[in-house]
């Protein structure tokens, strides 16, 4: 014991002010389909806190989520391993703050989160609040914050607007020399040109062409009807095959909702030989009747599902013929709580048709209980219902999509992974030793 040691110990002062706890998100810039780990430290031990995430859509609407956690005895918590005990989600959900977001109180009704500009990220402000609170109740004490960016495009992906030969779409090409496998990407009858799935495919190494076919200013004819025919979709497929950066025999097609019908239909057109098909919650039949506004004027919150069921019974013979002609693997994704399309029935129909044609080995069904119609890239918030513009715009109606947040989020995460694996298998065949051996023998 000496005086100098005592002096040294006394020199380590206790601060009268404590620093704010540390909140981290790693990595802090991710692609939308990647996870980020959210952790906090330097909290008091066994302390109640709220984590709140907020971001603005491209239209300026505020979306938010929150969850209640308790720090452990070391004053830390980790969303990867700890449990939410309340809020927008419960249980152990590493990405819960992202997929459970809903429009903040006071925002417009009937919103759906869809990124218009894929070249800029979503900026998510994640805050740590004192106690188990709702972020909108006053007063809230913010202890710490971190900002995360969620991107729809990886660095080096090129985006090209395509307006040639009558085609209206956007092409995304991965970085590098290529040639790349590719996907033709189609959405539903809401129209427009959602680019965000294609940009993500390109970020995963697949060139992707999202195609507009209805409700787009650059398309011919009135916006409330489909004014393009079979030759349009054939041209779109051909465009990909002819592209210098794309491997002509490695082109697949993916579609959601009405885009799903178009996916199967295009696959049976002359000259179109896709390497694989992915359909999500879509009808396997179509009628011009569907496109007439009048058909919807009775349907306020009535689900489209029932109308389509009736139509399918009428359509059966036509549908069977189309599906029989498919010669490539087909993956069909079903949200079992889909209130907009009769997805389960459609899946059964496809399966039955292919079995009858001796092609069941081509069929893969992914079925998700509790998931709704809009099975989109993972960790995106869902809307059980939203305003869906059926032209003319004045006749906007609230459309019920179905799905419940947690099972729908799980479906999006699982389906995306499996879709990418399916594409990997069919568009990027592995050059195993046995394949090379067979190739060598043939020469």
């Amino acid at each position, binding site marked *: 014991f000496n005086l100098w040691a005592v002096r040294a110990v006394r020199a380590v002062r*206790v601060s009268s002010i404590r620093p704010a706890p540390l909140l981290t998100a790693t990595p802090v810039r991710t692609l939308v389909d990647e996870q980020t780990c959210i952790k906090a430290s330097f909290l008091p031990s066994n302390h109640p806190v709220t984590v709140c995430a907020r971001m603005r859509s491209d239209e300026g609407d505020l979306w938010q989520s929150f969850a209640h956690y308790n720090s452990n005895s070391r004053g830390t918590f980790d969303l990867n391993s700890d449990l939410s005990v309340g809020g927008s989600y419960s249980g152990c959900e590493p990405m819960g703050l992202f997929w459970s977001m809903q429009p903040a109180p006071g925002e417009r009704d009937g919103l759906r989160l869809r990124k218009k500009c894929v070249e800029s990220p979503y900026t998510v402000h994640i805050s740590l609040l004192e106690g188990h609170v709702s972020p909108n109740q006053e007063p809230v004490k913010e202890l710490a914050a971190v900002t995360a960016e969620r991107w729809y495009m990886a660095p080096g992906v090129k985006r090209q607007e395509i307006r040639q030969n009558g085609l209206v779409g956007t092409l995304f090409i991965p970085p590098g020399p290529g040639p790349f496998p590719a996907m033709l990407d189609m959405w539903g009858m809401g129209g427009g040109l959602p680019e965000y799935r294609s940009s993500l495919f390109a970020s995963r190494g697949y060139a992707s062409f999202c195609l507009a076919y209805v409700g787009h200013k650059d398309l011919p004819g009135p916006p409330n009807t489909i004014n393009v025919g079979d030759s349009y979709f054939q041209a779109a497929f051909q465009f990909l095959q002819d592209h210098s950066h794309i491997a002509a025999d490695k082109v697949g097609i993916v579609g959601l909702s009405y885009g799903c019908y178009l996916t199967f239909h295009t696959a049976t057109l002359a000259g179109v030989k896709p390497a694989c098909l992915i359909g999500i919650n879509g009808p396997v039949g179509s009628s011009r009747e569907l496109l007439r506004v009048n058909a919807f004027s009775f349907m306020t919150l009535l689900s489209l599902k029932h109308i389509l069921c009736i139509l399918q019974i009428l359509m059966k013979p036509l549908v069977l013929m189309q599906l029989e002609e498919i010669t490539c693997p087909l993956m069909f994704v079903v949200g079992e709580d889909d209130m907009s399309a009769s997805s389960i029935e459609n899946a059964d129909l496809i399966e039955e048709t292919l079995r009858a044609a001796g092609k069941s080995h081509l069929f893969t069904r992914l079925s998700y209980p509790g998931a709704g119609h809009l099975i989109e890239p993972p960790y995106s918030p869902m809307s059980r219902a939203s305003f869906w513009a059926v032209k003319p715009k004045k006749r906007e109606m609230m459309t019920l999509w179905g799905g419940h947040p947690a099972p729908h989020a799980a479906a999006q995460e699982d389906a995306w992974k499996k879709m990418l694996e399916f594409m990997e298998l069919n568009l990027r065949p592995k050059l195993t030793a046995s394949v090379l051996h067979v190739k060598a023998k043939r020469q």
Partner: protein
Amino acid sequence: MSQAVPPLLSVRPSRALVDEKFSVLVENLPPGCPVTIRSLYQSEDKDFWEAYGHYVSNHKGTVSVSEDISLGGTYTGKEAMGLLWSMRPIPGSRKGLRLRKKDTCAPMLVTISVYSGHGDVRDQAPLASALVERWHVAPGVQRIEITEKGVRGTLFLPPGPGPFPAMLDLWGGGGGLQEYRAALLACRGFASLALEYLKSNDTKPKGLDMKYFETAFEIIRSHPQVIPDRVGIIGLCFGTLMTLSLAAECPTIKPRCIVCISNIHSKSNENTIQEFPQEIPEKYNKIHMMEDVVVWRDMGLAVLEVGHPKVKVGNIDCPMLLINGTDDQNWPTVEVASDIIKTMREAGKESLVTRLDYPDAGHLIEPPFSPHFRAANFMLHGTKKKVMMLWGGKTKPHADAQEDSWKKILSFLQLHLYGAPSLKANL
């Protein structure tokens, strides 16, 4: 005829902070295929830097840089980040280059490509490539230029309400304003002020006034989002001399802890730290010239031996972290560290010191994954004379030192600036 689809190269995460690791994966190669994975970066000065490793794919046709072993190139062995830290200027570049980011708000764009074979790949087209962003700032980090009360520097604030602990960041004798370490510290939760105290375009060396540093420290301390008694100082090289002086001899600056990288503690004379970078070389002609490269190490040893005035480190009352490389050719920093510890022991304060000596590391121990340069151009401060200075270090051990020391710096700072150390007697 089936058109071959080339291999898939992916780097995750594709956007990361510069002190974060990434995984580079190549898939869909033929099995047992020799490939070269190469990184290419064009600096802000328009020079090209590259690194590469030689790999062989496994039976599944994949190469994983994190898991597999590089058999040759600018790095060998299992090195997840070798494609960054082993970078050097491409052949034909100007001599003596050093890689330092000036614009901290824009990312470094690095192209990673895979080529067939183990030969010279520069004329070949790659099989596949990916673009990676390496950032010095996280979203939400604020960059504020400071020009008040005569103080010049850049303050980086972490996102969030705070209050935050803070750091004063002092670079070395090269002068100017280097922001990249302060930016990274802000990403890790520390409000940080990178201070310019040796202007690189001064033709005559200016006296270094303690008042300048006091004012800078006060600016940090009084910032509304900074906790006044949780401010530390980090310095490298000549910055260490300043750090030690401020902690030991300046009554108004009481850092909560200090980090000294590549220690120097010799002053030009008893009372001032003026004109040190120019005066010392003139006084002691033990500078070696090895093939046009200036080596100051032996001069530094001579300075130590003759008992030249040094900072009275015995007055320092806060925890200190000393980081040095044993192959430092610019100054005998390991010997300096030993001398500092000897003085602290005599003052009964050895328990305040944590010492990290890194074998075969050189002088410029920077944030992780930055390239190493054994010698580089250096402008002697206060002159217009540019020399090639030998910094020392062997590339792989130096890279290890950078990676390890950064982790240890962050945990040291977290302990002393975020933690609330109790008054447990260390007796």
